[in-house]
């Protein structure tokens, strides 16, 4: 990393620090520097780290807040990849250390760093093995942030897997009574998904061929760095064009360009009667929907959420679930558009099924935390539906605005759910820390005993419910509206699910907070919220209201990138996808295809 790199790649240090600072601090904490008995110091160091990372990410994401607009900072309203960092990592496989952010990943990065601060602050009640806890927590943060900023599929996969082990231990050591079962279940489910993803990654890698891309596309996808001068760019492009054998790539942007070519190399290979594109899409989709999770593969989630300690539940619901949605949006659709078009019904159907099933399951729960966990399944169903509504088809004259509305809504829903679900889990945790049970039947009358807490909690739960004016509303309404253009049945079902959502949340509020008197165990422990707890809950409530009344704060980031991707894919549908029924004759590599 020479000084020259810092000039051509201004985001090299900021972005790398955002990702790796937690891991570095974790490594230092792991060394026997801090003596035993100084747990408080470890907590403060970890919290300071998460705060620094949060401020760094905010510095990148919100330049005006910090005055000086450096070249590494994010330009709001620009659709393309920004702050791209590229260093060769494993040249033998064309693997790069390739990072970058756009309007889709930047808000998710900030959400992650923000929730990490809150979760770290919420970790104060953890008294068992404080050092190990914080080391694992910081490693987890590195893994999550790495996934959101990686633009190299190999790097993405590495970060994706790096999250698993810390999470396993965080649930397994600091969790509830059935923690071991929950931890191994989480690990096995996710690992199964990731192995399938690895197979898809390898298939895409070995069928990719950079020679099929035009010079403009090579530069646009950062295979040839745009930071180079024109002459060296031309040399690099010529070197690729002159190669004798296919040049494979893990570059996500280049893979997307290849996938959207009229003669996509991924559609040309067929295995057992289906094109490789469909196989890859399905394998990746399974890997991602396990994380989301959608209904047939969701059963790890209630166990993991319920058994995990409060801060880890916040991270699980707030960030980890978003990784699945992010993966579908960033990887599945752009790289395998043909499969995305023909399997849109699958994605939407899974979304609606989880939505309804999750809501009914939440209604049936007796355990407060389990109810919140199922509400996550239901809410993430909206994300799936919003991502899947591929309504830019022939019957619709390839108009993409409704679809873009859905994807924007899904993105908003992901961010809003990140705030509201983390808030809900925290609120449940506050109560659990006091009375040590979560049985919905044994609550009641909390409002009288803890008025401030109850007010904040009800606000957060209303945000989860999707009350207009709070953050949960915007995403749900956009998704529901947009799905009308795709399938009226699904739109009607998803609109009616809102009633179910209202039912389980209102019923829970009624059983927990309302009522005359608390009659459950440990009633004398119902003390008011501490300052620390207030400091965690207030920002969440504030953001839930803020994003409810000013959604453009998020849309300013999200919409340009989402719209561009959707528009590109809509044009692809018009030019390529709708004609895919006719067999595409194999021909020479379409190196002359101009950039879209």
């Amino acid at each position: 990393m020479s000084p020259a790199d810092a000039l051509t790649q201004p985001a090299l240090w900021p972005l790398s620090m955002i990702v790796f600072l937690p891991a570095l601090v974790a490594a230092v904490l792991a060394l026997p520097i801090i003596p035993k008995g100084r747990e408080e110091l470890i907590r403060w160091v970890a919290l300071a780290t998460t705060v620094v990372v949060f401020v760094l990410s905010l510095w990148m994401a919100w330049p005006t807040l910090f005055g000086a607009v450096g070249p590494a900072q994010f330009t709001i309203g620009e659709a393309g990849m920004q702050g791209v960092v590229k260093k060769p990592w494993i040249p033998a496989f064309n693997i790069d250390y390739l990072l970058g952010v756009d309007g889709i990943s930047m808000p998710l990065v900030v959400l992650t760093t923000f929730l990490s601060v809150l979760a770290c602050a919420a970790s104060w009640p953890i008294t068992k093995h404080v050092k190990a806890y914080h080391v694992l927590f910081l490693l987890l943060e590195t893994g999550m942030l790495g996934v959101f900023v990686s633009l190299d599929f190999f790097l993405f996969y590495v970060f994706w897997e790096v999250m698993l082990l810390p999470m396993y231990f965080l649930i397994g050591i600091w969790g509830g009574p059935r923690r071991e079962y929950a931890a191994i279940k989480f690990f096995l489910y996710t690992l199964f998904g990731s192995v399938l993803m690895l197979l898809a990654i390898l298939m895409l890698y070995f069928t990719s061929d950079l020679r099929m891309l035009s010079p403009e596309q090579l530069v646009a996808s950062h295979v040839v760095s745009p930071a180079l001068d024109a002459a060296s760019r031309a040399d690099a492009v010529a070197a690729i064009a002159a190669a004798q054998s296919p040049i494979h790539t893990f570059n996500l942007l280049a893979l997307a360009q290849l996938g959207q070519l009229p003669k996509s190399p991924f559609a040309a290979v067929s295995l057992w009667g289906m094109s490789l594109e469909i196989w890859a899409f399905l394998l990746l989709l399974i890997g991602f929907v396990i994380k989301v999770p959608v209904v047939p593969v969701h059963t790890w989630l209630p166990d993991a959420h319920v058994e995990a300690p409060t801060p880890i539940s916040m991270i699980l619901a707030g960030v980890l679930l978003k990784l699945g949605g992010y993966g579908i949006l960033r990887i599945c659709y752009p790289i395998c558009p043909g499969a995305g078009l023909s399997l849109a019904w699958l994605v939407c159907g899974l979304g609606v099924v989880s939505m309804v099933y999750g809501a009914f399951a939440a209604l049936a729960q007796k355990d407060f935390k389990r109810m919140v966990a199922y509400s996550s399944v239901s809410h993430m169903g909206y994300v799936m539906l919003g991502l899947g509504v591929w309504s830019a088809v022939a019957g619709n004259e390839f108009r993409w605005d409704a679809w873009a509305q859905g994807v924007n809504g899904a993105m908003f829903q992901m961010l809003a759910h990140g705030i509201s679900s983390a808030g809900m889990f925290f609120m449940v945790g506050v109560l659990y820390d006091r009375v040590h049970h979560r049985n919905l039947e044994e609550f009641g009358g909390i409002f009288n005993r803890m008025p401030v807490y109850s007010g904040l909690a009800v606000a957060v739960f209303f945000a989860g419910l999707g009350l207009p004016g709070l953050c949960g509303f915007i995403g749900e309404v956009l998704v529901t509206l947009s799905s009308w253009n795709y399938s009226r049945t699904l739109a009607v079902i998803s609109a009616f699910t809102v009633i179910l959502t209202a039912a389980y949340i209102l019923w829970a509020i009624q059983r927990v907070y309302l009522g005359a008197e608390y009659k459950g165990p440990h009633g004398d422990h119902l003390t008011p919220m501490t300052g620390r707890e207030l400091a965690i809950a207030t920002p969440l409530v504030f953001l839930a209201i803020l994003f409810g009344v000013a959604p453009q704060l998020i849309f300013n980031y999200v919409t340009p990138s989402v719209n561009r991707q959707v528009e590109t894919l809509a044009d692809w549908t018009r030019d390529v996808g709708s004609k895919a029924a006719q067999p595409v004759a194999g021909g020479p590599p379409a190196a002359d295809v101009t950039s879209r």
Partner: protein
Amino acid sequence: MDLGSLLTSTLTDTLEVSLPLFRVELALSATIVLVLLCRMLPVLRWLDSALVALGGVAFALWYAWSDLRGLPGSPWPAVVAATHPASQELFGGLLIFDSLTAYIRFLLAGFLVLYILFTKISGIPDREDGADFYTLVLGSSLGMCLMASANHLLMIFMAVEMASVPSYALAGMLKGRKASSEAALKYAVYGAGAAGVMLYGISLLAGVLGTCHLPSMAAELGRIVGDGADSFYVADSAGPIMVLTLGGLMMAVGLAFKLSAVPFHFWCPDVFEGAAAEVGAFLSVASKAAAVALAVRVAFGLGWLGDAADASAAGLADVRHFLVYLIGLMAAVTCTLGNLGAYGQTNMKRLLAYSTIAHAGYLLLGVAAAVAMLGVDPEGCRKAVTALAFYLGTYLFMNLGAFAIVAVLRNRLRSEEIAAYAGLVRSNPGMVVAAGAVLVSLVGLPPLAGFVSKFLIFSSLVEAITKGIERPLMLVLLVIGGLNTVISLFYYLRVLKVMTFDPPPEDRVAAPAPVWLPGALVTAVVVPVVLLGIFWSGLYAYAQLAGTFAS
């Protein structure tokens, strides 16, 4: 050629060509003699045989290193001025020196250095047994070096026996322990059976093909299979292929025994459990590397003859097809049964034995991919061999680390049961972190070395699939490999679970043992497991060098 010129040419060949490329083996032999001398002569009694062995092995490592560096295409400039030819038959074709030989010999010598340090620190063997132990280890390693370079059926048999016989004695090193003696006996009987079958297979092959020299065998094999020609030695036209198949299968028995591949793996758990952890480390790492190299040697030697395009090439394609299915089947069964067998284990060494079996299966997946692409897609074939070489390189650290941890914990806890490790994280957090890195690397999760190895093996399979080479089989193997990764997670994690989640037993009496030396040893072995998972370009360049012989 008269007798005189024959003698002269043999002498020239031996002295000027063969011996300079045989220095590693010579160094090992000299070390063995030296270790024995030190034991016999009263003057030299004071010398610690471990140090003598270490010195000799260091020489061997240096020679192996310069041989590897002297190869054409070496990633770093050669230290010695003289460069070797890419491929050179030694001793009139009995052995072959090429990139695979050089790489495996370097791996073995490097392993021996670490291994002797490890045994010195862990305390088995004690001073009294040292000379015996190191003689046996070095003798076995000598056989393994020959396995990696064998080019002739006779040498293959000799090398396998030379590697095996000392191992039988090593398995019984813990004198007076019933389990140890049982392990040695079981190993010896099983080994003798396998050797007998293999020898029978060798004689069938040699009898039909009329030669023991692998390339000459391949030429004859291609002719017989390709043209359906009669063997010169067997008159019946249906006969040769039947006999050849039988001979090949019987020879595979011997190789499978060395690889501990299913169904010839039964010795492995018993031997690992009965023998000391130190012996387990030797058998699981060194023996495995040599056996994989030999499997590659035999499959490549019998299945390919260079780019000659004639009828025999078509015949050899049939041979390869047969070999791919044979190896692939064995790989699938081996990794599945190895992983399933590991589930119920309560003894750590036994669990590692099944883990070794499973990893033999993963390695065989790579061998299958390499043989599938042999001659069809030279670049893919080279990559597959590279993947194997890389796998062996990382496997060395992973398994040496695993057994080192078992040995260090045995010295502390006086037990090798998994249950005895309960709650270890409270007293030995560093050791648990090291164990975590090793075990998770054995599962194959990033960012650890085991992931890269698996990634490379899988990518060779996918490469074959996308190129349409043996597609159905490769797909099945890929899926089986992937599923095995998932199911293997459970039992490796169970060990970590016991170490971290479970409360420590109340009656634990940890033996007072020095901490820093074993700690340094484990660190030295485990740190590469992490580093090779992140910065693997360097080792990959050397693995690529090892793969060049396949072109």
